[in-house]
Structures are given as structure tokens and as C-alpha cells.
């Protein structure tokens, strides 16, 4: 009887552990893939989605995807998008456990500046025109989605930059 209770308790414990690990492992794999291609704090513009695309299940074929892994352990970074074209464009942020903790609408915007920092580094005074995004972890993912106007098209924004907040360092766009 004791053995059965122990097995059931262990099952419950492992059940929760597996549930917690699934999203973290999937995100870790996706982040590793982006970092291996573009490094951290650099946008990677995914090729147009078609039937050969095997990166993430259930892709939306009409959308452009630009993805970056933001490393915030060294301090806040600024994500700057310029001249977002198309009828739909959004910037979304994901935690390491896959939660979409922030979304910004950006279609038709000439320039969007997002100050991304960990909660412990959140600033009470953010310059005008800059939106602060507080991240729940030191490493998060940012995804820019835009509607594909034509096949073989341009990314959703004409300018993608990520740089250390208050620093001149600017990462190159790939």
C-alpha cells in the first residue's frame, strides 16, 4: 500500500515537472536556434513561411516573422523599429516559459522605441515617445509580425535596431 501511495505521489510530482518543462524546453530550443543564427540582441528575419518551413508548428503563412533574443542581464536594451508598413504589424515579447507578456501595436508607425528591462531595473522616468517593457527574466524573445504584402517581400519594418539603453552600441540587422 505504501509503495502504491509513493508511486502515485511521485507520478503527481513528475506530472507537474513535465508540464513545467515542456514550454521551457520548447522556448529554450527556439531561442537557441535564433541565437545560433543571429546571436543575441540581433533581429533575424525568417524566410517566407511555406510547406517546407519546419521551425515552429502552425505558422501563419501570410505573416513576416522577425525574431530576436534579448539579453537583459547586462542592462536594459532599446528595440527601435522604423517605418512599419503593411496593414498589420505588432511587436510581442515572450518569457522563457512562453508567456506573451507584452504586445505593442505598430502598423503605420514611423518610429517605435521600446525600452526593455528586467523588473528590477524598471525606471520611473522614461523619455517621452519611449515605451517601457518590463521583462520577467533576463533573457526574453521579441517577435515582430507583419502581414506579407507580396511573396519574397520585405520585413514588416524598414528599420530594426537593438542597442543597449543609453549606449551607442548598435547591433547589426541580419
Amino acid at each position: 500500500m505504501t509503495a502504491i501511495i509513493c508511486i502515485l505521489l511521485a507520478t503527481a510530482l513528475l506530472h507537474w515537472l513535465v508540464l513545467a518543462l515542456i514550454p521551457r524546453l520548447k522556448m529554450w530550443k527556439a531561442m537557441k536556434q535564433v541565437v545560433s543564427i543571429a546571436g543575441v540582441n540581433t533581429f533575424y528575419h525568417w524566410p517566407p513561411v511555406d510547406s517546407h518551413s519546419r521551425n515552429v508548428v502552425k505558422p501563419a503563412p501570410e505573416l513576416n516573422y522577425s525574431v530576436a533574443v534579448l539579453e537583459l542581464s547586462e542592462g536594459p536594451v532599446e528595440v527601435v523599429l522604423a517605418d512599419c508598413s503593411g496593414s498589420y504589424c505588432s511587436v510581442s515579447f515572450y518569457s522563457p516559459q512562453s508567456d506573451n507578456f507584452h504586445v505593442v501595436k505598430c502598423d503605420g508607425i514611423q518610429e517605435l522605441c521600446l525600452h526593455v528591462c528586467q523588473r528590477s531595473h524598471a525606471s520611473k522616468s522614461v523619455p517621452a515617445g519611449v515605451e517601457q517593457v518590463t521583462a520577467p527574466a533576463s533573457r526574453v524573445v521579441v517577435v515582430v509580425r507583419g502581414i506579407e504584402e507580396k511573396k519574397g517581400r520585405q520585413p514588416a519594418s524598414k528599420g530594426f535596431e537593438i542597442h543597449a539603453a543609453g549606449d551607442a552600441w548598435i547591433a547589426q540587422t541580419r
Partner: protein
Amino acid sequence: MLGTETIVYGLATVCALVFLVAISVWAGLRIAYHLTSLHFGPWISNWATGAASANPWLRAHVALKGLMALNASEAVYFTATKDDEGISLNGQCCYLLEGKPLPSAWWSLTVYGNDLFLIPNEAERFSFCGESVRPEPDGSFRIYLSPRPVGENWLPSGGESRLTLTMRYYRPAFGGINSLRKGQLPRIKRLQNQ
């Protein structure tokens, strides 16, 4: 030195544990997702998709079947794996998807194959959206999901044995999924086997 009996007992316990965990996770993902989601005929949606408030089963389900989904403030996803009769969608059959788009900034209807990726087809067509679908005079749409060309709005199913449909509404303007009724989402009517 461990006795043979102890080793066999230990192995049996580990096997039982692995089996129980695998079964409980598999069942938990299916049951909890269905219990905590809203059903509109064959369509299923969950308001907590992508949100930090998602329960662990939903979060794991989304990670496996739609990683990096947007939260409901930006997009609402409806998924169907069955037709109006409750029969699993089969790529060998012809279906009529008929409905009127809900108010939103943008919408799309995409079909996926067994592996939840886009289905290869000569037309290179994987979905319809507000811009690509040819609407009826009343603003509704009639999309034919079929392995062979049917009508103007033909969505190739490629003969896949199992299909999944996903309807996306970006920046929904219909006041949340709780206010929706079954008839407001597209009907999925099986017309014939090919």
C-alpha cells in the same frame, strides 16, 4: 549486492512510474485543454492562450501546438479538427467552410496537415484571409477544403489523413470569446468523399 528480486522490483516500479507520468501528462493535456476551453460547434478557443494566467496544461498545450501564440488582447485563435457532424477532418474529403468574418483588424483561415505544418500543394495556397478570399455579395465567404480544385476559394487539403483548421482574428473587435455563439464561426460541412 542487490538481489535479482530487488532489481526486478525496482525496474517494474520505474516502468510503472514512467508509464503513469506519460499517460497522466497526455490525458491531462487533452482533458484540461478541452475542459478549460470554449467550444463553438467544431471550433475550440481559449481566452488564456499566450497569457501569463494560463494554467500549466494550457501553457504546455500551446507550447506543443502553437508556440509563441499571441495573447487574447492581440489575437484570438479558433481551432477545429472535426466537422459539424463531429467527424475528424480528413484530407480525402471535400468540405465547405461557410461563414461571415468577425470584426477584427485582420483574419485568416489556415489548414495544417498531420504534423501541424503547411500542406505542400502546387497552388502554394495554405490559407485564406480577408484580402485573398473572394467574398459573397453579403460579405460572407465560402471556402472549399478539398484535395482537388473546387470553386474560386479552393483550399488544398493534399489528401492528408488528418487536418487541423486554425482561424486567427488579430485585434478582435467582437468583445471577447465569451460573447460569441456557435453560429458566428464558420460551418464545416462535409460534402463528399473524393
